[in-house]
């Protein structure tokens, strides 16, 4: 729908590129910040802003791991289990999160607060195990650090609209 905040934000990003279609990835990031994931209406809005079909937008989004095609928790916890982290005990860190949250990797807690998933190499291999919490790295994380991380997130106030905007691409 024209003239929504998202529409305007996408236009600003698109102006940076010689070809507007290049803005689809930042546009999808912006849409995901608005909705928390990418529901069908997000593809409508991105497509509308960039003169692309919703199906095309969805086809692009489904290629990339960071776009969520179904709802996720308010907090996203991603544990790297690639070889450098695995060699020094990423499995134990992941199991500690699973115990603490009562879900398996790939699942969201019933209260919708946390999604836990494993992720391929995050690029912090020398400070393993690397865990990305709401897109900020914690490194190194040991199994005994896990309860405090969860407690901190449970206590944290939800991000304000302003903070959400600051995170815009």
């Amino acid at each position, binding site marked *: 729908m024209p003239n929504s905040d998202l529409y305007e934000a996408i236009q600003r990003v698109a102006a940076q590129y010689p070809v507007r279609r290049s803005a689809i990835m930042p546009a999808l990031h912006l849409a995901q910040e608005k909705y928390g994931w990418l529901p069908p209406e997000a593809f409508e809005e991105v497509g509308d802003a960039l003169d692309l079909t919703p199906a095309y937008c969805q086809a692009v989004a*489904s290629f990339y791991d960071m776009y*969520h*095609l179904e709802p996720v928790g308010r907090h996203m916890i991603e544990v790297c289990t690639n070889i450098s982290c695995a*060699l020094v005990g990423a499995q134990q860190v992941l199991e500690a999160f699973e115990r603490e949250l009562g879900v398996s990797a*790939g699942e969201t807690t019933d209260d919708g607060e946390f999604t836990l998933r494993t992720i391929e190499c995050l690029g912090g*291999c020398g400070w393993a195990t690397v865990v990305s919490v709401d897109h900020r790295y914690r490194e190194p994380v040991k199994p005994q650090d896990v309860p405090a991380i969860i407690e901190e997130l449970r206590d944290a106030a939800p991000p304000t609209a302003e903070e959400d905007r600051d995170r815009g691409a």
Partner: protein
Amino acid sequence: MPLLPPPRRIATVALRELLLAHADERDLTKLSEYEAVGGYSSLRKALGMERQTILDELLASQIKGRGGAGFPMGRKASFLPKPGDTPKPIYLTVNADESEPGTFKDREIMFRAPHALVEGTVITSYAIGADTAFIYIRGEYYSEFEILRAALEEARERGFVGEDILRSGTSVTIVVHRGAGAYICGEETALLESLEGKRGQPRSKPPFPAISGVYASPTLINNVETVATVPAIIGTGGEQYAKIGVEGSAGTRVFSLSGNVVRGGNYELELGTPLAELIYSHGGGIADGRVLKAVIPGGSSVPVLAANEINTPLDFDAMANVGTFLGSGAVIVIDDRACMVQLGLRVAQFYQHESCGKCTPCREGTRWMVQILKKIEDGRASQGELDLLLNVCDRILGNCLCPLGDAAAMPVASYVAKFRDEYQRHIDEGRCPFGGESSLEGLFAPVDQHHAHLRAQIEVPVHELA
């Protein structure tokens, strides 16, 4: 505020720092601090030089690309048409999509010395006649994206980036483009597709990007570390730079050290430094009093070295002589607890997950590799299946548009070649000889977890191997 990675470790042996010089004592993310140690003086110098003279300096420096393939930067730039000879705009694209497992050097460069990348980007753009440069940064590097964006803003305010740079008449716009989680986008043509707003699937070459890159225009693509080294090359002169390092491997590299080592981290060293010096003098040796078993010298896609090969110098030719690659400069240390079948399985799982699906040998072959390796690990494999594994590796190698399939096949074939007795014992004993003692026991691979709605389908075995 972004969370800082732990400080770089204090080594007992001196580093040879060009890129990360002063990064420990000063906050080089601030423009004033970067200028205080000579930052942007190379840009001033470059703007007073002819474009061709700069390209000649890059050629004379003999610097090879730091992303993995090791192609000489000066030669790559020489394939581009000259600005007057093409009706199309010329673009520079900086590959900051660092995702090769074990590699985290570009992240540290952007985190601690973002202005070196900005300065290198502007100089390189000027040299090739590009007025727009893209920096494609992996989506997960959010803090680094913010640091880079802030550095760019500061550089723009000071007139180092943007219109009419330092009143030279040269204009360079830099666009930072965030990826969204796809290893394949580190491959140059997949990166270009992604930058154009498509699924990141590699193109067939030729045409090479120098002729037809982003928006079908001539495009130079270089890795972060390569571009961030340009100011040092222009500052000291290409010939002088070429004296650092050894024959065929000029300069320094930021090596990412990880795995079962006491002090993991990034260490900038002169090329030609022995691998053992990195692991023992800088990295403090093997952690937990264990024994070294193997080393992956250049990221998870390269063939492994056995413990008795660690005196090999860290240079391109020496690594080629022992059948492997310096790759992305990611050194992964593996101690005696690791089961090499589990290691092969985890590596194969990664490449299966990241295969874009365009070429059949890679898409299907990586899945076959995972299935066979699972059977071997579970002790259910027959003798023929070990041969089948190598056969599959062989059929992937060189048969795809891009090297992703090779990146799975080469390391796994090398694990079998160098640790065949371990693979054989899994088959003979009908179980993993490590029992539950392997450091990789119970490892989790995130195969398609992001497509949870497809999980049920994916987990159905497609076909049981004969």
